[in-house]
């Protein structure tokens, strides 16, 4: 897909898991372009997945949910043996950015979340903060690494390596508004075909204010190990109740104290 890439616009990924074939071309293209060595080969006893997780060496990770029902005739159509190419979500409300003490994590001119390697001090706050466990420390550099949404390629007018390599266009790259529109069309098509379990994840602002890398899922987010809309909020934004509670407690405490002092004074 030819996309003209201009600074100042929002870009992202729309990953349509209903047409993902689990080929892992995204994983390999990412490693080749970003010169990631990958981990030592290890059999993980988890279906066809031997990558395991997103981390400093794996910026795309295809998850396999090996759950085929016994009855076979209509098990296909993306409903069973789910596959999902996971990636950094480039959240609007990016917890990694919020906790980064050095300002290493920035929002780029393409509206993506990027860790500046020369500013990162390896404090690991972002690793703990990321709700998707996307970030990891590279032991060789001592700095935090994750998907850059191919910042260097975008600057050169090229789409990210994973999207370019994806044979089925399960991973689509483009201006966020266009991707959102395409996702709405695809969702409507699936729903009209009776695939009612299909749902978008991160398309709107309910998940961390909206994800620049959002998904079409074929089951609920929890099936893929993703937090659902109820849980996908930053502490600073989802704890209004907590603040009120704390405030009430504080006020009550002060009142109680005053009452106590008064009582002592009167006794």
């Amino acid at each position, binding site marked *: 897909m030819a996309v003209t890439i201009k600074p100042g616009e929002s870009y992202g990924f729309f990953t349509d898991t*209903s*047409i*993902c*074939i*689990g*080929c*892992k*071309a995204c*994983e*390999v293209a990412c*490693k*080749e372009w970003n010169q990631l*060595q*990958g*981990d*030592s*080969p*290890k*059999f993980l*006893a*988890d*279906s*066809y997945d*031997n*990558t395991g997780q997103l981390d400093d060496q794996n910026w795309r990770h295809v998850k396999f949910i*090996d*759950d*085929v*029902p*016994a009855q*076979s*005739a*209509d*098990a*296909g*159509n*993306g409903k*069973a*043996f*789910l*596959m999902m190419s996971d990636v950094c979500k480039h959240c609007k409300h990016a917890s990694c950015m919020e906790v980064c003490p050095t300002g290493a994590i920035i929002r780029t001119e393409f509206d993506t979340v990027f860790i500046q390697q020369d500013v990162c001090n390896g404090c690991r706050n972002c690793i703990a903060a990321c709700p998707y466990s996307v970030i990891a420390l590279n032991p060789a550099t001592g700095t935090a690494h994750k998907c850059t949404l191919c910042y260097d390629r975008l600057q050169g007018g090229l789409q990210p390596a994973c999207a370019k390599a994806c*044979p*089925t*266009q399960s991973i689509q790259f483009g201006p966020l508004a266009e991707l959102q529109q395409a996702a709405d069309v*695809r969702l409507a*098509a699936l729903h009209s*075909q009776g695939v009612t379990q299909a749902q978008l994840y991160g398309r709107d602002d309910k998940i961390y204010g909206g994800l620049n890398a959002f998904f079409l899922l074929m089951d609920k987010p929890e099936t893929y190990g993703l937090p659902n809309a109820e849980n996908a909020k930053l502490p600073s934004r989802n704890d209004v109740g907590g603040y009120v509670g704390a405030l009430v407690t504080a006020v009550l405490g002060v009142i109680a104290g005053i009452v106590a002092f008064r009582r002592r004074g009167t006794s």
Partner: protein
Amino acid sequence: MTNHWRDIKNADLILINGANPAEAHPVGFQWFMRAKLDRGAKIIHADPRFTRTSAVADLYLRIRTGSDVAYFGGLINHVLQNNLFQDVYVRNYTNASFIVKQGFGFTDGLFSGYSSTKRAYDISSWSYEAGSDGFARRDMTLQDPRSVFQLMKTHYARYTPDVVSSITGIPVDEFKKVADLVGQMGKPDKVMTIVYAVGLTHHTTGGQLIRSGAVLQLLLGNMGRPGGGMNAERGHANIQGNTDHAISWEILPGYLRIPAPGQKNLDDYVAQSAPKKSDPNSWNFFGTNYRKFMVSTLKGWYGDTATKDNEFAFDYIPKPGQNSSWMSIYDQALKGKMEGVMLSGMTAASIGPDSNQVQQALSNLKWLVVMDALPTTSSEFWHAPGVDASQVKTEVFMLPATHWIEKDGSFVNSGRWSQWKDQVVPPQGQARHDHWILADIFSRVKALYNQQGGKFPDPIMHLTFNYKDPLKPELDEIAKEINGKDLATGKQMTTFANLKDDGTTTAGDWIYTGSYLDSGNLMKRRDGIQDPKTNDPTGMGFYPNWAWSWPLNRRVMYNRASADLDGKPWDPKRPGITWNGTRWVGDVPDYPATMNPHDPNAYLPFIMNGEGVGRLFSNGMIDGPFPEHYEPVESPVANPLHASVSASPVAFLYDQAAGRPNRFGTAAEFPYIATSYRLTEHEHYVTQHVPHLVQLQPEPFVEIPWELAQTKGIKTGDKVRVSSKRGKLEVLAVVTKRLGSMTVAGQKVFQIGIPIHWGYVGIAADSDPSHGRYWLANALTPFVGDANARTPEFKAFLVNLEKM
């Protein structure tokens, strides 16, 4: 492929059998997804395993491996019994109306003419009854009891949904769902494609498995149409090119037959090889021009030495006295009759069936030459784990050859597009191109003949070798030579229609004539999706100026059949070619460009066949004119249709014929069905050297049905031993519900899945304490193959399973 990858987007229904395109052809798979996303096409995947293809299919059917003739036979029966076939097409474009000779029959699993002592058929009764004009008699009403149509209807009447279910293991109601969808595809405004790969070919009935799909497609009127066809996905980037240029022993380039013993001259050769015209309106293009193609080939190879007086050097061409296919080579080596073998672009130790026997064969050789970019299980077989090198007689030469990325040249894809590519990096170290190695050997052999003489040196001494540097021919020079030229004018030939049998034209491979003109190499053309309006004027995805497609840049073969008797497309929205009143327009017509369809002498549509029509009944196969279900050689059940003739009665049994001990197991000892296959993460055996891919699938494993694993206490990650009569595999288990039990012939059976990619060479083997000693998947597979092509039965055999 009769069609091509991009064309799959034009289909309404996609049947996938014996293939796993999402994993084996992920790039081509985009067109399956386009059909699904853009036109709501349905994908039906019938496979022993629920794979990454099944995951995005609309219907998945768990089918027993090797039973696809029953599946297609059941669909054929459904279409015939319910009159769902494309009537006009079947009457006019197939041999349904042809009358078969008296004496043809089929009883208890055997066609007429069988000899049990020879394990072969006399096929003389498998032909048409001749009329007074010498051509085949026809009954256009299709009512004659000996018409192909009626014989076929009777033959397939046995394939009821219950019988199909009993053979394939597909539940009756699921089969009926598919039959309903397929049954709608005989309407002219509908079209279905069948896609297959080696999952259909790797059986003793492989050829017939494919034919059964093709017969169904003819009945539905789907051959020759965009969005239709019978489409083989090839297993490598250039397997199609290999086949076209005669990698198989039984053909010369362009699918001309290899001459046979007893053929004294070209007349004998053509008489025994070329199709015969059997209908007055048949063009019989191939048969008519066979001699021209052969003479032009010989003229290309032997130049001035090939003259009319010496039958254009016909005697220089070998006339093999016996089968020389893959297994036959190792069979000969086992018998001690093979001195040496040269391997290029593959590893014999891994890719053949019954690896232990193949390794024994390799160790019987005097010498083995391996031309490869990287160490292979063949170059290292003599010191493989468990092999005593002192017992190996073979001297092994490893010649470093370039990788394809280090050379230019063509890749011919499954859709017959010959696409020229560039060299990306220069050759590393001392690596030489395979064709340079061969050219050097040729030059040295020629020099030896020059110095020392020898028996019959002529085929070597007179071979045309006119390259700028005879030791280093350029692929561009070879491509130009393959196209052929007019010797009188020196100009490149533009079409094989102009080839002559008088020695004035050459063609290295007639089907490639037209690919390299005086104007240049058409395989380099790249007018593609950068401008779809200009480059794909019909919108059907032909892109005529993208690379070059054989024959004559035609994108869909047999495309005359895409139009009705008047020359109008069956479906105006999906035209192949159209008669515009003066000529055929659209794709490059598979027909004379200006032949009026209303002309009473107009040719029939299938111009390459002697009949001029598609063959529902064919004497081109040695195991039957109609596809019939036979069990794999190793099967847990007797054939539900005819228990006395359970497996193919004509598959060649090498060990038995050679007097070697039996190497086939029984269900009593080996109760589980096994099938072998590739994973998307690896490419055969070569990617064992690629770190990023080894990370994705680091260790060999087998896939075990969850239910069976429960009874054996096997969990994912446990080590298991899988054994057949021939060998064993000791690897990890992946337990999954994607494989399951099925009921076949009233019996509960399990299928076990065996990925093939590992051996004793590569990153994973190097890090294993046993160096991958029991990692060769083909240690399990049987040394037997398709009755016709002898393609090994890699896909269906019996094993036992133990937890280690």
